């Protein structure tokens, strides 16, 4: 059944590039959208897939070999939702049919790549799909061919190339040690031959590769430039789900399935997470550009996820994955809001904006919800995940880190409040008097995401049973 998640986008790309170019240009957006919607529906209602047998047969032709657990399903859902949002944003921002066609193509490729990353159980396959995702995102960042975007993409390519090299080297070493590239084989081989120089080295460089891809301090240099220079839709995609899949998901999967939670790895994750939280939040405080601020905020929030993972307990892992989900939702919402502001006012400079809440009520309200969820204000979804992470830290005895997490949460609130105050509240400037509410493509996804934030927050007790408890089962598996 899940093989359709890779095969459908793959065939989608092929169909789009068949000779009937004029026709395909018209339906590219809708084809892409329907594939994304299919993915969302498949995760929410697994029983709808009635033709899965045939697709599975096709999958076996390609020797597909999957492992889909609850963590993968959470990621697949996030990928679906965020890509759905990004498609709407792109369509709203760009009338050019060619561009939408190209965007749809690359979206399908990146969808393919991310779905692959999420479902594989072989470290080399993981690498291959990471590369698909990475290359697609380079293209997407530079999509509008602006010079800043090329610069951002270039920085991403450089650091990503370093990550690739490190990852390949680590894979080679694992192959040498275990003779196979499957997760389970490597895991058992690592258990047998522990403490060797090689293993420490290989684990270290693999973790560094993951850190670079997730944009954790001090490996984060590419993040602000890439996020802020990319087109609006791509920022949504990148911040919402791409770096989370290629970086954080990989990190969680590899640490959980292969490396295991040894003391050095725990301490490493906690330290890197805490540094990221603090540095990201402090840096976000000083930004004037909305998207740069969101980018630094993203670094900070990723820190929370990693620090949750670093506890090595079922509770911490649940919190980390829940925060991963929440972060996907609220960060893409905030990027959609920033896109709405930029498309209506033509600027992202906070000093030039003020009082927009009167003119753009829906954008204002949804951005408040997103910000508050990010800052961890009850009863929004972000509150619960941060709470779980902090409780997990406290319970496992990492009290200092728990205090850092709480204090940094105050910083988060500070920069989001300053953002809200300078952009949406205050006196409306004269040159902004003609601003209108953003178009349907920007408001509709924002509303959906806001509803998810509020709904998950309020119905958290219902949600925890179907979401969090299965996650505990994957620990160490």
């Amino acid at each position, binding site marked *: 059944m899940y093989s359709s998640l890779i095969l459908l986008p*793959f065939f989608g*790309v092929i169909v789009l590039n068949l000779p009937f170019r004029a026709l395909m240009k018209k339906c590219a957006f809708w084809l892409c959208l329907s594939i994304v919607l299919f993915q969302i529906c498949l995760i929410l209602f697994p029983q709808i897939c009635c033709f899965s047998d045939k697709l599975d047969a096709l999958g076996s032709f*390609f*020797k*597909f*070999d999957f492992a889909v657990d609850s963590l993968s399903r959470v990621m697949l859902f996030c990928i679906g939702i965020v890509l759905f949002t990004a498609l709407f944003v792109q369509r709203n921002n760009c009338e050019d049919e060619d561009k939408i066609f*190209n965007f749809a*193509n*690359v979206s399908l*490729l990146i969808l*393919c*790549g991310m779905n*692959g990353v999420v479902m*594989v159980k*072989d470290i*080399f*396959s993981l690498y*291959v*799909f990471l*590369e*698909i995702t990475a*290359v*697609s995102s*380079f*293209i997407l960042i*530079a*999509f509008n*061919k602006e010079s800043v975007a090329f610069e951002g993409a270039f920085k991403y390519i450089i650091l990503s190339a370093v990550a690739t090299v490190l990852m390949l080297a680590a894979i080679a070493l694992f*192959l*040498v*040690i275990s*003779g*196979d590239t499957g997760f389970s084989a490597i895991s058992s081989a690592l258990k047998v031959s522990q403490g060797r120089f090689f293993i420490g080295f290989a684990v270290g460089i693999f973790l560094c590769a993951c850190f670079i891809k997730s944009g954790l301090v001090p490996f984060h240099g590419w993040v602000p430039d890439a996020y802020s220079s990319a087109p609006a839709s791509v920022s949504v995609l990148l911040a919402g789900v791409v770096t989370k899949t290629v970086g954080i998901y990989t990190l969680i999967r590899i640490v959980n399935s292969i490396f295991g939670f040894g003391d050095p790895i725990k301490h490493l994750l906690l330290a890197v997470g805490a540094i990221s939280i603090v540095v990201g939040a402090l840096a976000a405080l000083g930004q004037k550009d909305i998207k740069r601020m969101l980018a630094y905020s993203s670094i900070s929030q990723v820190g929370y996820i990693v620090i949750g993972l670093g506890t090595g307990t079922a509770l911490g892992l649940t919190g980390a994955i829940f925060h991963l989900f929440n972060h996907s939702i609220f960060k893409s919402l905030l990027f959609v809001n920033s896109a709405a502001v930029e498309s209506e006012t033509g600027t992202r400079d906070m000093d030039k904006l003020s009082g927009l809440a009167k003119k753009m009520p829906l954008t204002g309200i949804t951005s408040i919800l997103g910000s508050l969820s990010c800052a961890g204000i009850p009863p929004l979804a972000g509150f619960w995940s941060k709470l779980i992470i902090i409780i997990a830290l406290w319970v496992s005895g990492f009290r200092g880190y728990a205090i850092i997490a709480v204090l940094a949460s105050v910083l988060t609130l500070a920069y989001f409040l300053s953002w809200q105050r300078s952009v949406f509240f205050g006196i409306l400037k004269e040159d902004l008097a003609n601003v209108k509410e953003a178009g349907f493509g920007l408001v509709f996804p924002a509303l959906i995401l806001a509803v998810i934030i509020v709904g998950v927050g309020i119905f958290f007790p219902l949600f925890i049973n179907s979401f969090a408890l299965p996650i505990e089962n994957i620990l160490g598996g």
Partner: protein
Amino acid sequence: MYLDIIILVVLLLASLWTVMTRSILRSAIGLALTSVILSIVMFRLNSPLAAVFELSVCAGLISVLFVSTISITQPYTTEEILKRMKDMFARFRFLPLIIIVSAIGLAFVSIKPVINLPPPEAIKDARVMLWNVRGFDVMGQILILLTGVFGIVILFKEGLKK
């Protein structure tokens, strides 16, 4: 042993030159040189198939692509570009040939592996390996290629038109 060290040092120097040089053309040539030296290392590591692959694709094909692209994008008039291309092809006319011949020559020189790693369990035929065991990866690699093509089309097609 000493030979290995010398080769690795040369590899390092070549890659450093690639990164450090000011001229983008020299940088491409440096990349080709690095690939060549890498293929020598691969021969010495007892995997001729990979070495040949590296030599032909990375050192040969990609270098040619790079060099031609750089030439095209130079801000010269068409005549100048044509002239320069002629010059270049004249200069590098024999390079692929030299590389391939030297590679084949190296292939017959048997060198003991010096790095003492535990060998993989079973060395399978590359073709069997690629299709039967790693079919999934192959599809992924096809997708990477496809993505690369798309990237070039999307990002550079219009630039070429201008």
